[in-house]
């Protein structure tokens, strides 16, 4: 049983095509079998609604009088990328408004444009004979623009790694707040509704495939950046007319202590050309497998803790090292379903025709890491290895003498087994002296909650941690909590001195 795209489009024109959403397909195939399902079903619609940072729009403002060659462009104080023709600019979703807050950014500008709100436009230039104007201030809406075209370099991830956190601190990431000691897991993606997961061989999704992009008709224009087909993490580059989009399918996102992003509703119709496509679109959440990775390791290659299915992630709990860990979604399944349903309705109405790719997406290739000429130094390269320890039961007086004798301000406190139990600083001792004889021993005056770092962490992570906790030094420990050294802000300043 084979159907051509022309036959399917003919049925759509005649209003007799059978269209279902991809979450309905597993049961249909189970009930009818592949052969009959292929005959019965013409199109399966998919959908996803997630925060897609790699998004933005090309805008053409038209020429001012006198003309200006816009060198720098600000939309509601959010800088757009220029460096192309005089009045073209690209507004990126994650660009933040100037100023200290993380409250407004490119995602908001895009949402406000689609919502037909007024946007303050400012531009600066150096002036040329053909473009004499040097600065410009005006107010525009999307209707004033010649073109407003969304071009997203990377959307529609086939699936996405789920995130958890092994460290002892809360991490605020683009995957949401990750609580310490593996207390939660966040995930993104719509599982069985995910467009690329329903066509993993890229037979119908490729360059030229017509798609639903935030309420408008759009197109796949190629593989997305970081397209990683050999690992099952394919991505799409897409375009769509911003002027036809609908704010119901787009929403600016402010991710706490991370920054701005943009929720986008993207749906792709999949023609059931043969049994192979019926089989592909019958996938279930249990067939879509991703990894749980540890964001507690602040490195590029984060350890994979286990493989996990979207069925497990969507159940609300996942077993991790024998512990039931709560999961939470960053993307919206309800909105993904709304995308697939809306696309289904448009096809049934006859207002959305399918197209086959004019060129396939690459099926081979893997994502490469960055080539770095210089290796970033690690904590072990800069830490002081000569560490003066003290034990818990030592008197405060003795501790003060040790600090003075060694000319230091911080001392890790260790147990008899040599494990870190606290830290005592000259300030802790001063405090205990000020309070009289209240504290007699080191264990009474020390801080028990010690901020630490590992030897294989980058010094950049160490510098960020010292700054975050407003401290000047911290112990470097191994997983057994044995102290290997100390790293201080003065150790880090060696980098600047060279």
């Amino acid at each position, binding site marked *: 049983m084979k159907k051509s795209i022309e036959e399917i489009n003919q049925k759509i024109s005649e209003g007799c095509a059978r269209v279902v959403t991809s979450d309905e397909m597993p049961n249909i195939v189970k009930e009818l079998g592949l052969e009959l399902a292929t005959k019965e079903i013409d199109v399966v619609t998919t959908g996803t*609604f997630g*925060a897609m940072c790699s998004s933005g729009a090309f805008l053409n403002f038209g020429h001012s009088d006198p003309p200006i060659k816009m060198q720098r462009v600000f939309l509601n104080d959010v800088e757009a990328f220029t460096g192309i023709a005089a009045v073209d600019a690209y507004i990126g979703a994650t660009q933040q408004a100037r100023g200290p807050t993380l409250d407004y950014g490119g995602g908001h500008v895009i949402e406000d444009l689609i919502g037909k709100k007024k946007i303050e436009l400012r531009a600066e230039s150096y002036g040329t004979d053909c473009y004499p104007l040097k600065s410009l201030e005006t107010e525009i809406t999307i209707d004033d623009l010649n073109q407003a075209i969304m071009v997203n370099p990377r959307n529609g991830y086939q699936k996405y790694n789920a995130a958890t956190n092994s460290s002892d601190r809360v991490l605020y990431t683009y995957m*949401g*707040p990750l609580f310490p000691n593996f207390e*939660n897991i*966040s995930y993104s993606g719509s599982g069985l509704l995910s467009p690329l997961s329903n066509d993993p061989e890229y037979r119908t999704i490729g360059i030229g495939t017509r798609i639903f992009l935030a309420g408008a008709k759009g197109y796949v224009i190629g593989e997305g950046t970081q397209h990683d087909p050999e690992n099952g993490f394919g991505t799409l580059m897409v375009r769509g007319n911003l002027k036809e989009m609908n704010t119901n399918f787009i*929403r*600016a*996102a*402010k*991710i*706490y202590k991370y920054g701005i*992003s943009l*929720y986008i509703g993207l749906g792709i119709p999949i023609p059931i050309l043969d049994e192979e496509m019926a089989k592909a679109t019958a996938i279930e959440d249990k067939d879509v497998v991703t990894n749980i990775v540890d964001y507690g390791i602040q490195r590029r290659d984060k350890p994979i803790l286990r493989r996990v299915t979207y069925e497990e992630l969507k159940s*609300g709990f996942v077993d991790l090292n024998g512990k039931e860990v*709560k999961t*939470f*979604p*960053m*993307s*919206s*399944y*309800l*909105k993904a*379903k709304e995308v697939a349903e809306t696309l289904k309705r448009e096809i049934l109405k006859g207002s959305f025709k399918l197209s086959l790719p004019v060129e396939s997406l690459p099926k081979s290739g893997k994502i490469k890491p960055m080539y770095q000429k210089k290796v970033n130094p690690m904590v072990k390269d800069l830490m002081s290895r000569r560490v003066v320890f003290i034990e818990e039961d030592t008197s405060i007086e003795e501790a003060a003498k040790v600090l003075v004798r060694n000319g230091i301000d911080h001392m890790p406190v260790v147990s008899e087994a040599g494990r870190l139990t606290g830290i005592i600083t000259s300030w802790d001792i001063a405090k205990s002296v000020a309070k009289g004889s209240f504290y007699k021993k080191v264990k009474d005056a020390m801080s028990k909650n010690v901020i630490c770092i590992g030897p294989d962490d980058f010094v950049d992570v160490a510098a960020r941690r010292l700054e975050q906790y407003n401290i000047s030094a911290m112990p470097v420990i191994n997983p057994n909590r044995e102290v290997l050294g100390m790293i201080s802000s003065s150790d880090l300043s060696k980098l600047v001195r060279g």
Partner: protein
Amino acid sequence: MKMKIQIPANLVRKPIVSDIVLKTKVLINLEKVNIETNKADMIVDVKDEWEDVKKAFEERGIKVDLLKEPIKRRLDRCVMCGICSMICPVDVFKISEDWEVKMDSSRCIICKNCIDLCPTESLTIDY
């Protein structure tokens, strides 16, 4: 009924809640208490006869706000992701079977943890 109680400086050191419980014989559940030297704020929950408790606080010169809908959600902005359901300590938000994020405002104790974490800025607390 949840209420926000604002105790002025001159009454901070008085055993007001105990006094009201003894006099009204109504149980008061303290959900959030913040006592400073010159003022105290409390969120309390009273199941039955909350009018009596409200009156008793007010007779002592204490300001009482009824928290009928302490947290509000803009449904035109909410995308039903469900991050709020993970952060809320008292289960105001629940993801339903069909992936709708349901909100039971009456459970809210105004910790405000969800406010900053909502990516689409859909949640507001006026108190």
